[in-house]
């Protein structure tokens, strides 16, 4: 929305006023705007305004080879890029009927959980900053950086690893990688009590987040809420367990729920998921050396790869919720249509609009960060 195109709506005199919240605002996650109508501090209505990050991924993908899109998809969600690569690769593998080697599946699970840890640390840091506590933010970002170091070692890229390709992963781990990952997990494990005493059990945070942006389980189901936000309303649902992909059915982990449905519960679910991701990674470290074999199944020449005609809908659990790709092939060397269903397309638009009504202006940032909304997933 450029200023010269903005016309204020003419209204009779009242106490109500309109406020543009974002796109450049510390209380907004990413480039995203919110048009709120207020009476004093109370939000009367809220309208999401997206489009500041639109890069036309779905159209771009139709014009590029199947393999070229691998470099494109992680850019759809910056804080949590690995599920994008894995979900897109799973779709192509399903269309081609490829059976990927078990070692590649374990390697993918390892990255997915590393990415989830990194994203949750980022989210926790972001929420802490909106509460006015900057130390947890620096801690979260600094500890995320240690995970990015391991990504750099494994894949060569810190954020966008572009490591998963249809058929498996690009290359095997470097020597001694699992040892270094293990010592990183030891370190993160030892940090969790510190996070608790600094943030999650801090009365400043608890009093600020309790009953803010609360929704019931019925509302959450009706509004299409998924992932940690749904589990924070008490429903134990996780795509990893209930619609398993890769080797998640061989892994032992708990699905954490909280009864409250408010910003506090959502953060506590993410806090407990940090523990669960560490638990999954420890199982991967224990199991991976015994899985021998290739990390990639034979694939055709990627530059002349005609994927058989068909359509598929693949889903994975990203750190933000249910991530799905609808991929259609007409037998050509490029996708005919790719539809990305990002979890934030629900959380950042409809759910946020509904939860904001009746809350106060200063709560919007709390609600948005507790939903862990990722605007690039909305814009695509």
């Amino acid at each position, binding site marked *: 929305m450029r200023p010269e195109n903005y016309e204020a709506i003419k209204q009779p005199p009242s106490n109500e006023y309109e406020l543009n919240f974002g796109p450049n605002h510390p209380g907004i996650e990413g480039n995203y705007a919110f048009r709120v109508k207020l009476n004093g501090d109370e939000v009367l209505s809220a309208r999401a305004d997206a489009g500041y990050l639109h890069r036309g991924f779905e*159209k771009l993908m139709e014009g590029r080879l199947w393999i070229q899109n691998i470099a494109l998809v992680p850019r759809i969600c910056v804080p949590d890029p690995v599920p994008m690569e894995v979900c897109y690769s799973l779709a192509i593998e399903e269309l081609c009927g490829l059976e990927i080697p078990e070692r590649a599946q374990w390697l993918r699970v390892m990255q997915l959980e590393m990415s989830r840890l990194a994203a949750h640390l980022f989210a926790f840091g972001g929420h802490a900053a909106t509460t006015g506590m900057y130390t947890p933010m620096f801690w979260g970002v600094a500890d995320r950086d240690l995970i990015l170091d391991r990504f750099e070692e494994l894949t060569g890229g810190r954020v966008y690893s572009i490591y998963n390709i249809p058929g498996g992963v690009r290359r095997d781990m470097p020597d001694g990688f699992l040892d270094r990952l293990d010592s990183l997990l030891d370190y993160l494990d030892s940090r969790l009590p510190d996070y608790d005493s600094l943030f999650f059990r801090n009365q400043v945070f608890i009093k600020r987040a309790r009953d803010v942006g609360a929704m019931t389980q019925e509302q959450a189901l009706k509004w299409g809420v998924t992932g940690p936000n749904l589990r924070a309303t008490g429903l134990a649902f996780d795509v990893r367990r*209930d619609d398993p992909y890769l080797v998640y059915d061989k892994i032992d982990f708990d699905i954490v729920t909280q009864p409250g449905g408010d910003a506090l519960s959502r953060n506590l679910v993410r806090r407990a998921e940090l523990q669960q991701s560490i638990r999954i990674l420890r199982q991967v470290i224990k199991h991976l050396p015994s899985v021998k074999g290739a990390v990639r199944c034979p694939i055709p020449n990627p530059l002349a790869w005609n994927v058989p005609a068909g359509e598929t*809908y693949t*889903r994975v659990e990203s750190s933000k919720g249910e991530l*799905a790709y609808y991929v259609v092939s007409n037998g050509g060397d490029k996708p005919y249509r790719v539809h990305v269903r990002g979890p934030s397309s629900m959380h950042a638009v*409809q759910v946020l609009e509904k939860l904001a009504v009746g809350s106060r202006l200063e709560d919007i940032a709390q609600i948005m960060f507790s939903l862990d909304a990722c605007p690039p997933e909305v814009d695509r």
Partner: protein
Amino acid sequence: MSKELNLWLDDLLQDIKIIKFKRKSSRRVRIDIAPEALPALLELLQGRASYVHLSAISCVDWIEEDEFELVYHVWSYETNSLVSAHTRVPRDPGVYLSVYDLYTPAAFFERDIHEMFGLYFEGSPDMEKFILTEWNGPPPMRKDFDSEAFVNQTFSWEEYHPQWLKDIEAEGGGITTRPEDVR
């Protein structure tokens, strides 16, 4: 228990003559149905078979058949299975019914499809522009919209060759490959 429910649903759906039913895997079902019967099917799935979660509505532009394909992905938290209901509506005039009264998340997907494909949904609460607020051209996700042709028409290619680069080149440095050599 959940498996029995799935089998029960299979039997039920196979008995309905107007739909084409196909079980793709233990948790994926594909249904092809006429556009006028789709809202009734979704109502049945949601109200009687616990498919309460609308995961997505995907739109595919089949330009050679002159049709839009709409795919409604609905998920059941009880039987843990996903039904993808496919239907096809003509590209012209490009109007279809909204399922907002059944599934609230439909509002976002329908608004998105209207913006990107130009398919209008009657009864949807909000068909205003969302992402492409200042876009006046045709709906960009349609297959007959050519991005590259649009860029060539709208913008002019500029040679990026500023003075400081010329100075470097005078000393023998600079960019070795010019953009026009690549294109």
